């Protein structure tokens, strides 16, 4: 056998290459099965960056479907609740340039939460059915109320309300939520305007 191979180098090379090819092919095939990734990891990463408001302003029924759509090549600027920072983060992840928010889908606004004027609520449960995160509590013909901590401010409960008793209120900032403001960008200031601004401030 050995001598046959040493005599026919062509044959030996052929056998060696075919053997190696089979071996590595088998290994790769096994690894592909063994370490298979179930869902598309990029969709998961995109979903993590989206604000999970589940408002549907992007035109998809929830954040994950939009994440899927972005992964399939949709525009990344359709999420008003996430705003520019979310667009930037997604652009960073996908390594593309960040567009500005597509105003067709809405404008970036201050975060709000729903508030039900309880005296006016007739207990129709329509808002409960509309809430994507089960943040409204109540039963038929009984007053409903919003669990403020769970409300994502998606606005979806406002439209179905037959008596218009739901307000979207901005979140009031108290002293614990206060944060140091960022100093003005020095590039925005040239020496003359800076001194003018200080005079204004004084």
């Amino acid at each position, binding site marked *: 056998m050995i001598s046959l191979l040493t005599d026919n180098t062509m044959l030996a090379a052929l056998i060696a290459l075919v053997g190696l090819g089979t071996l590595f092919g088998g290994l790769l095939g096994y690894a592909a099965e063994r370490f298979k990734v179930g869902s598309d990891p990029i969709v998961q990463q995109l979903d993590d960056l989206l604000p999970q408001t589940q408002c549907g302003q992007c035109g998809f029924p929830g954040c994950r479907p939009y994440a899927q759509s972005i992964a399939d090549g949709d525009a990344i600027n359709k999420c008003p609740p996430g705003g520019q920072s979310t667009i930037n983060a997604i652009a960073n992840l996908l390594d593309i340039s960040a567009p500005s928010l597509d105003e067709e889908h809405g404008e970036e606004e201050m975060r709000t939460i729903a508030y039900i004027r309880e005296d006016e609520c007739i207990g129709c449960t329509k808002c409960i059915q509309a809430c*994507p*995160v089960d943040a409204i509590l109540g039963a038929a013909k009984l007053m409903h109320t919003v669990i403020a901590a769970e409300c994502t401010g998606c606005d979806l409960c406002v439209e179905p309300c037959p008596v218009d008793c739901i307000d979207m209120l901005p979140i009031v900032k108290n002293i614990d939520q*206060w944060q140091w403001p960022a100093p003005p960008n*020095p590039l925005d*200031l040239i020496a003359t305007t800076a001194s003018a601004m200080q005079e204004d401030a004084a």
Partner: protein
Amino acid sequence: MRRIWDAPGGVHPPDNKAQSLTSSIGQLPLPEKLILPLTQHVGAAAKVCVSVGEKVLKGQKLASASASISAAIHAPSSGWITAIEERAVAHPSGMSAPCIEITCDGEDRWIECMGYPDYKQATPPQLRNLIADAGVAGLGGAGFPSAAKLERGTHMPVDTLIINATECEPYITADDILIRERADQIIQGIDIISHLLGTPKTILIGIENNKPEAIAALNHHCQGSGIEVVSFPTKYPSGGEKQLIYILTGKEIPSGHLPADLGIVCLNSSTVFAIKRAVIDGEPLISRITTLAGEACDINRNYEILIGTPVSHLLAQNAFHPELCSRLIMGGPMMGFSLTSSDVPLVKSSTCILAPSHTEIPDDDPVQACIRCGLCAEACPASLLPQQLYWYARADDHERLQAHNLFDCIECGACSYVCPSNIPLVQHYRSSKADIVNARTAKATAAVARERFEFRQVRLEMADTVREAKREARRIVTEKAKITSPTTTQPSGSSAADIIKAAQLRGTARQASPEQQRAKLERTLMAAEMRLKEAQQRLLQATNNASVDQQAQQLASVEAAKRKVEQATQRLTEVSH
């Protein structure tokens, strides 16, 4: 002589401490009103346990600790609770927070105090409770509740107790004067803490060498007590906890860890004094030493102020000239913040009120571009790269900021101090830190929202499947019923003629055999005749002894029964033919 390590970075601003050290600790006249914010410490706000209109005595508890990291609040003087509401507090935002207002009655009458002069008999948990009940929080400026700090010391054996008497910020001399005048009480406090922590091997007092009188006082009282007074060269910010620990022991606290993880507990000297008062005298923390300094006040001095004293009251007693003052600063010139109003109260962490003149601390010069000189990196005591952090903060690059250990920044201000371009570096870092924390919370809430959304989807799907299953079950049942009664099966074809034909077929099929029909009709006839007889009997009775209405009724029923009998007879004759 103990070895001293040299902490990295640091700056040497003019210390300006002599002005306020010319006289001893002063006392202020009692203010008309005291305002006590519920959050004077790090952690949760205290829970109010008095009500408006109540009369309180000096030292009475007004609010109790509401969580493991929280501190109680006591009445600094006797009087009436006149309000529990939002008031402007000493905070960089100038916003208001819940406060208790006491209108003093001028008697300054103490509640009965229970001290434990023989604290050696008490167990560590008892002592910790005493300290917690007295509302002691770190008086060095941070305001971390001391009981919580000492509690952490119980998880690991503590081998080193460090007393921080560094007081490295310019102008502030509160610890210095307290040590000069009351060193003996501080040593007593150290004994208590040492007993509480199970007698650590090493007890050190760290103090900068610009306080010779305080060092002498400490040395005098420490003789033979096993407490070592260590003085080291003056440099800002040696008084930072991590910096002081490195200077005295050469140990670095790893990022994200606490001194307790290395078996070290570090307390400020004023805090130790407050602990002594709490344990031995039973007096809660209702006063502290605060430095008043700056050229806009004629008198610069240290005062033992009652917590809750309005800053304006302190200033009014010291010939304050508002027109000379560039801004009012609470805390030192390096780490303090500007006050928006002088009506705010002094709190447990108020080390100093600084009223500098325009020449002393001039307004900020305009910010210029970073010239990458690198002075900030040399000055940083935490060995960070302030310049890199600045660029990343400008770019909102949270990932890189964290990779460059933004959260190890102690916000000492040394980088801003040395910056030749006047860049407010620390403000950039503070803002970025808050942004990162906000982003983290937003992420956490988003995760919860996603979980709830997905749970709802699953729930709706399940409800759908259940409904679908029910519908399917119903369908099967009807199908089965159709199979068991084949007469009702639909014939194939769907044209109108077919349907009519099928209906006619069904109609004829429904007609049973003539015998069965006749038997059925005979039964009906018999029943009808029976009913007719009964009705006629009732009519007879009614004609004898009932009203006209009832007679009419019975007559009608007899007529109906007669009709039924007629119908039945007719049908029967039809069928038999």
